[in-house]
């Protein structure tokens, strides 16, 4: 009689251990699958922000983040995109939470921290500039799949062809999507609201 009970008890423990092991395996497996299907964007960096302070990839963790690559000597796309980002953030109101935005220069040779700071100031305190050595900027841009090409124009001047998408990154540093240039305002607003709530 006692032997039977002991056998049942042992079987129960064995079953429980197996269930935990299987559950652990399944959870682990699905996590791995998630990690392998989500695009891995971004890389470690050491640059300077528009206040002249050192900034690293750590700035993109812990807060939902909007990233935009551009430069100050750009007449349309850059001011319009910055204005849109700043307007959208204002419109979110309290739903903005701790959403932050960064304007990363694709023309760091001309965009010093001071130039960037002055340029972005009217777009509000939620947007910070990032600049630094050209090679470091190029590496960072490449890690985000951002195309940058310096193109000479007249009189020794130049312009910079660059990817104009706005990147949305959640507070865990995970890439969540993009906002295209001149995307429908309501859709862009919904995307930002979702990002801020994640």
């Amino acid at each position, binding site marked *: 009689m006692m032997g039977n009970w002991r056998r049942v008890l042992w079987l129960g423990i064995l079953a429980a251990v197996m269930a935990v092991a299987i559950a652990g395996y399944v959870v682990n497996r699905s996590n791995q699958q998630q990690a392998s299907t989500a695009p891995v964007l971004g890389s470690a960096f050491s640059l300077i922000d528009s206040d002249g302070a050192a900034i690293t990839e750590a700035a993109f963790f812990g807060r939902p983040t909007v990233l935009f690559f551009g430069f100050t*000597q750009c007449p349309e796309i850059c001011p319009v995109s910055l204005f849109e980002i700043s307007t959208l953030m204002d419109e979110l109101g309290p739903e903005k939470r701790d959403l932050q935005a960064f304007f990363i220069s694709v023309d760091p040779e001309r965009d010093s921290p001071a130039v960037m700071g002055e340029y972005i100031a009217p777009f509000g305190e939620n947007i910070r500039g990032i600049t630094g050595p050209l090679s470091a900027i190029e590496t960072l841009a490449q890690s985000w799949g951002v195309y940058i090409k310096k193109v000479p124009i007249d009189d020794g001047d130049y312009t910079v*062809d660059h990817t104009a998408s706005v990147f949305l990154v959640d507070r865990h540093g995970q890439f969540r999507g993009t906002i295209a240039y001149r995307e429908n305002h309501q859709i862009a607003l919904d995307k930002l609201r979702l990002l801020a709530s994640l």
Partner: protein
Amino acid sequence: MTLKLTQGCLRSMKQLSSHMIAPLCGLVFAVFLGLFISALADGMNGLRIKDGWSRETTAGARVGGGYLTVMNHGQVPDRLLAVRAEHAGMSEVHTMAMQDDVMVMRPVEEPLLIEPGAILELRPGGLHLMFMQLNQQHVAGEMLDIVLVFERAGELDATLEVLSMRDSMDRMRNSGDHMGHGDQASHDKNGGANDDHNDESHSHK
């Protein structure tokens, strides 16, 4: 000639009843007057510049854009050779296009052709005036005086109204710019290439 014609009319009036000949003479005068005016207009340039505007710039900005429309009401084609602005160290006509999410901007390679009856539009998302080395901020509410240099019409003054960022966004939405219609490629092509403007102009003939 007009005098001879008048005398002719007066002589005819002696032979015919005046109530029949007077309207005829009026018609002849009207035709001559029309020819005279059109000859005068032919001598002048038929270019009309309108709807000039620019976006306000932030204090740190070294460049600014400008947009306007040129209509050719004349009988001859013309070309936009250059743009001059005192508030900028260098001014050019540029074209801009989005290619796979990449912003590509270039000075136009050849002067933009405007055929008779054609309209040249410089607007967001495509052709624009590019002011570089700004020595003055574009301040909302102010007017910018610029000069457009044409091959035939010569130098024509134009003004650009500086719009606030918010107003410029409204203008972009309302003017049916090249972006945000889901068919950017075809629009950009029309706005960006000189050849397409030639085609456009021919179709007006």
